[in-house]
């Protein structure tokens, strides 16, 4: 018979007669009063002076000027509206090189930036939801940076362009199909200030 106990019994049994072994450490149970997220952290209060930070307090935001994170918070789709002067560009799976189509769109985006010289843009890198979150955060950063570098070679001042990666975290669609994945592998251009008044 297959008794574990039998196996156990063939070993030396150490019989322990103990009445008390551990002292009781009774812990007080303070009730939670707030969660990690809602509190100010005791570390540095986050003023790192990045271009992107200015968008929070400064620029007014519209559809073309709202970060995908804010869209998510407001329950809105992070899809770039057709009316935006800055169009999204798209990437292959696990790629961050620029396709011919992406370069064409970037040239058009660069023209708009040159005609709107006070505009500052935050370039968001996004990924489809396949693969791991951390790798996709890094991949999204590569995509945003590739777009930024190409825009600067076209003559847009680098200081006007900041980048952020949302990895796979803020998709425009959630179906497990290539047509949806391809829409999520994108760089998006959020106009922080100096938008046309039209």
């Amino acid at each position, binding site marked *: 018979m297959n008794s574990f106990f039998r196996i156990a019994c063939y*070993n030396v049994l150490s019989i322990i007669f103990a009445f008390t072994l551990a002292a009781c450490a009774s812990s007080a149970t303070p009730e939670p009063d707030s969660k*990690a997220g809602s509190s100010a952290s005791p*570390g540095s209060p986050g003023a790192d002076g990045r271009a992107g930070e200015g968008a929070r307090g400064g620029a007014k935001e519209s559809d073309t000027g709202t970060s995908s994170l804010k869209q998510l918070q407001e329950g809105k789709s992070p899809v770039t509206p057709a009316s935006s002067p800055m169009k999204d560009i798209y990437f292959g799976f696990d790629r961050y090189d620029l396709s011919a189509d992406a370069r064409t769109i970037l040239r058009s985006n660069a023209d708009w930036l040159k005609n709107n010289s006070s505009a500052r843009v935050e370039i968001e890198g996004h990924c489809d939801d396949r693969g791991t979150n951390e790798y996709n955060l890094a991949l999204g950063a590569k995509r945003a940076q590739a777009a930024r570098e190409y825009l600067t070679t076209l003559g847009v001042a680098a200081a006007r362009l900041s980048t952020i990666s949302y990895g796979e975290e803020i998709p425009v669609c959630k179906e497990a199909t290539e047509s949806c994945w391809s829409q999520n592998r994108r760089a998006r251009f959020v106009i922080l200030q100096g938008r046309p008044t039209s």
Partner: protein
Amino acid sequence: MRKIFLGIFCFFILPSSAQAAVTGEIVGQGGQRFPIAVSPLKNLGVNTGESGRLSTGIADAMVHDLELSGWFKVIDRSAYIESAQGSGITLGSFDFKDWSTIGAEGLVKGGFSVQGDEITVELRLFDVYQNKERIGKRYTGRVRDFRRIAHKFVDEIINQFTGIPGVFNTRIAYVSTSGGRFKEIYVSHLDGSEKFQVTDNHTINLSPDWSPDGRSILYSSFKDRNQTLYLFELFSGKEIRFTPGAGGRYLSGRVSPDGQSIVATLESSGNTNLYLLDRSGKLIRQLTQDTGIEVSPAWSPDGKQIVYVSDRSGSPQLYILDLASGKSRRLTYSGSYNTSPEWSPRGDRIVYTGRVGGRFAIFTIAVDGGDPRRLTAESFDSEDPTWSPDGRFIAFSSNRAGRYHLYVMQAGGDNQRRLTGSGGDDTKPNWSPRLD
């Protein structure tokens, strides 16, 4: 600040308990499961409205753990002959034949009494064939934490059988969208009980990592818009924000085995590299210098090496960095997409996510790069593996039931069982160390 209770129970080894010293694993892959019965507990105190719930609740929690381990076949309660409330819980006060008749070789019996909001639980493990008691313990704790007493006793049972305590008095930290469209971090026991929401900032919170003392969670968040790391103390509710240098962003981090340092992924100008930080987030030194992607670091148990992901070969692959020499060696060569490694607490293997046939699966590989094994099927995705503190189990997330849920399996891939079923996607599990 929000805080968590990770209380300590008094426990006493009851007189006449016997402990067997057994070493090695008795049941391996595909081994026969040991038939055990877990009787509902006898109420030794005054009957109250919740006596019935406690009687079966403690037994249910033990059944859950024993099944999850994969080493036991728990005999269904409907087959039990004796009445739990009518028979005794000590040797000689019940008939072993009632249990051998239904095929039980092991038997767990116990009793409890409630005084105010405190519960005392006595649990015993019997050998039905030998008619002997193997373990007897008495625990005291808060009534609402009764499941934790069950988890602790199952850890004792597993120690009796395998020579190494079980891992059921542990918690899992994970990311969930169960509260809506945001990704928040939660911790809970393996059975989903004592669920605690760590973040509630309505943004994206990722990559939770337990400190080795089980007291803090390191995680990354977009709550201050630019992603960075936060170290949250569960007991005090205190939190430290890690501020990267100008233009940088921390994507993730892992606390070292000695708890004194952190390896973090820092992104700057599109490049990601690994950096060593102290516990307060102060930069100690840069560990990798590459123009590509370097992410997902994980420590070796001795803290001397770090396994991580790099795309320097053209696709994401695993590499091992030796901290003393600063040199990296490539670990994985098969497959075009290998990510999210974690080093076994035993030190011998590394678990990771690999892409195969357009799907993601969990693999392990020996530290020298030999003997890669796929543990999950190709017909769905399985990702984000994490080792149990004893190295005998792996938790992971999978979409095999539609949405992503957390699962656990034996380290060889056997006995894959679902842990969570929230209304959202549960991902990125990180297994705590053993807790008090």
